[in-house]
């Protein structure tokens, strides 16, 4: 399959842990397909999430059966009752944020059993919408709101997987884009690097010829600071982008915030605009803090 201009998978390596380093040796080069007489082995894992990103995989209706032929699916609880949790996995797709105490150990195990670990979606790459709790005090929160708080086990923060283990690639979005997912899997199967494009959504809009919602209708839009990956869906239906693919690298969020204030948004509105689906991604987190 050929690369679409819309792909914008990002290569990340934020954390080096001993477990992560050990992992590479355990795994098997997916390009050496028949080293063990088998196909590359896939695991699909879920932490705190809505399952929408796994849903994108299941929504590859035209490709799903071919994928199932090309890959050996060892662990994918939402699709299959055959669970081989021990792996080892050539490719691990990880959805969801690290949000509960048991996740800390689970993600280390997955890393140790996986050759290539890819985080899929806003939850896994930024903490997701549930990271909105990171801006308050969870402890007070849980004790105040649950009639039986003793049964609630949650970490104080919901965080990205890369805060805990080395991540080989990440796919952004809430949910991820199907085209990016297929490109990534194809690239890994072929042993090449996925096509990566770090462009803003705003640039995308111009390329597709969409009318700018800010210029034409005065609507606030996070397009200038958001990573393009969706294909500028919101402007295509006449609304501003709300940043679900997270910040583009090197985004000038301060200038963006100024623009939004000029458009008549209040400080609270600007803070909330950055503090949304990907609000705990560093650039957006820092910008929202400037409008406390």
């Amino acid at each position, binding site marked *: 399959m050929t690369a679409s201009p819309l792909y914008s998978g990002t290569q990340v390596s934020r954390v080096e842990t001993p477990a992560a380093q050990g992992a590479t040796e355990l795994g098997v080069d997916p390009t050496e397909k028949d080293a063990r007489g088998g196909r590359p082995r896939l695991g699909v894992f879920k932490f705190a999430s809505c399952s929408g990103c796994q849903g994108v995989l299941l*929504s590859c209706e035209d490709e799903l059966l071919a994928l199932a032929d090309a890959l050996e*699916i060892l662990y994918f609880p939402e699709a299959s009752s055959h669970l081989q949790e021990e792996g080892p996995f050539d490719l691990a797709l990880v959805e969801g944020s690290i949000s509960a105490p048991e996740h800390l150990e689970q993600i280390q195990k997955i890393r140790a059993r996986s050759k290539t670990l890819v985080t899929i979606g806003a939850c896994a790459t930024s903490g997701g919408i549930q990271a909105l709790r990171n801006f*308050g005090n969870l402890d007070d929160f849980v004790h105040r709101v649950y009639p039986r708080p003793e049964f609630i*086990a*949650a970490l104080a923060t919901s965080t990205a997987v890369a805060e805990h283990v080395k991540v080989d690639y990440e796919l952004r979005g809430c949910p991820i884009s199907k085209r990016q997912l297929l490109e990534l899997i194809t690239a890994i199967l072929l042993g090449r690097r996925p096509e990566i494009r770090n462009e803003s959504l705003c640039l995308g809009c111009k390329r597709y010829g969409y009318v700018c919602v800010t210029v034409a209708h005065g609507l606030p839009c996070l397009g200038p600071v958001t990573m393009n990956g969706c294909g500028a869906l*919101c402007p295509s*239906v006449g609304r501003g982008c709300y940043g679900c693919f997270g910040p583009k690298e090197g985004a000038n969020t301060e200038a963006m915030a100024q623009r939004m204030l000029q458009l008549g948004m209040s400080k609270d509105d600007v803070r909330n605009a950055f503090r949304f689906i990907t609000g705990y991604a560093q650039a957006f987190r820092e910008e929202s803090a400037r409008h406390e």
Partner: protein
Amino acid sequence: MNEQMNGKVSKEHDGTRTFRVEMLTRVEGEGRFHLEVKDGQVRKAILHIFEPPRFFEGFLVGRSLFEVPDITARICGICPVTYQMSSTRALEAILGITPSTGIRKLRRLMYCAEWIESHALHIFLLHAPDFLGYASALEMARDHRGLVETALRMKKVGNSLLEAIGARAIHPVSVRVGGFTKPPSPRRLQALLPELEWGLEAAQETVTITNSLPMPEFQQPYVFVALDGGADYPLEWGEQIAVSGRDPVPLGEFEKVFIEEQVDRSPAFHCRLPDGTPYLTGPMARLNLFADRLHPRAQEALERTGLTLPVLNPYRSIVVRAVELVHAFAEAVDLVREYTPPEPPYFEAPLRAGEGFGATEAPRGLQYQRYRVNDAGIVQEARIVPPTSQNQPRIEADLAGLGPELLAMSQEEATLRCEQLIRAYDPCISCATHFLKLDIREVED
């Protein structure tokens, strides 16, 4: 299939037999179950949810009501439209907006698309493998490739329709309080007609296929609960909730009649009627209460099955779901044929303080929301009741009812029978954990 898969554990000592699965598969989200039978008596029947809580009702507070549909969509990647629709309904009630017929029809079409996608997924990819003895649809495809391809094609039709209306199928972006940011062009929708018409035939075929599956015999005394959609089959709109054998419940009374409480041992809530009776929501409840409102094509399909109402065997919900799949395709075809873009695409109204309720029918059952907002349109309190927390006590009661029959079976067969029963509810476990009771007066600074 082997005993190792799926962490099944069997134990037998002092006359106690235990059936459990540590990781439920082919359901949305993470859970396990545990059933203990001693001397023919069920001692424990527990469906345990171990999804981490995500606190939606907490962080909705302080957000603008216009942000709500984009937030609540993220509760569930399988039924985001459900959450968006119940939210907009509740918030529009606060603002005094009554959406036009055109907007309501487009919403109904969008909801049909979600039913198509979700029902096709559940019937074939999640549930049918139980009946035919496979671990997954992908494995099933080795022997029944055509069947799985048909399922995927139907699912794709649903997704394409969602994309045409909402720009993407999971977490659509065109839904807003008051209507749609931009409705699709008639051409875009009409281009999908051939596939929708194909889907309608494929769904009819699905009814025949599911109706011929080997069906375990099992019955329970159910209380059925479904949204009363007036002349329409329950879906995206309704002012009251129907309860079999009891008085209907106006939306505003929901929380008085369907009592939600936090369950020991988990971050999920359970709902019961005030006298403690568990109830059932979802396809079987909708059909048993409102079969007369099915689309004529779906009524024909139902007649062909020879099913007598009320359907009381939860395993048969796979057939009921297929009948609803026919309904969703048939309505979608009608709605696309008569479609003209709603004008205006959305309504606006001045912000004001108030409280509003919204309930709609997710593919897997009734979904209720309530909001209280201040005069600046900022959410002060949010309450969200997903279908699975309503069905969970009913699932446990079913498991308890199943207990005695299981004793005559092998461990593997019995465990599988339990799983098949749980899957009949199409549980959406992520949804069931995201909720919490919140007293805003304590939280506000």
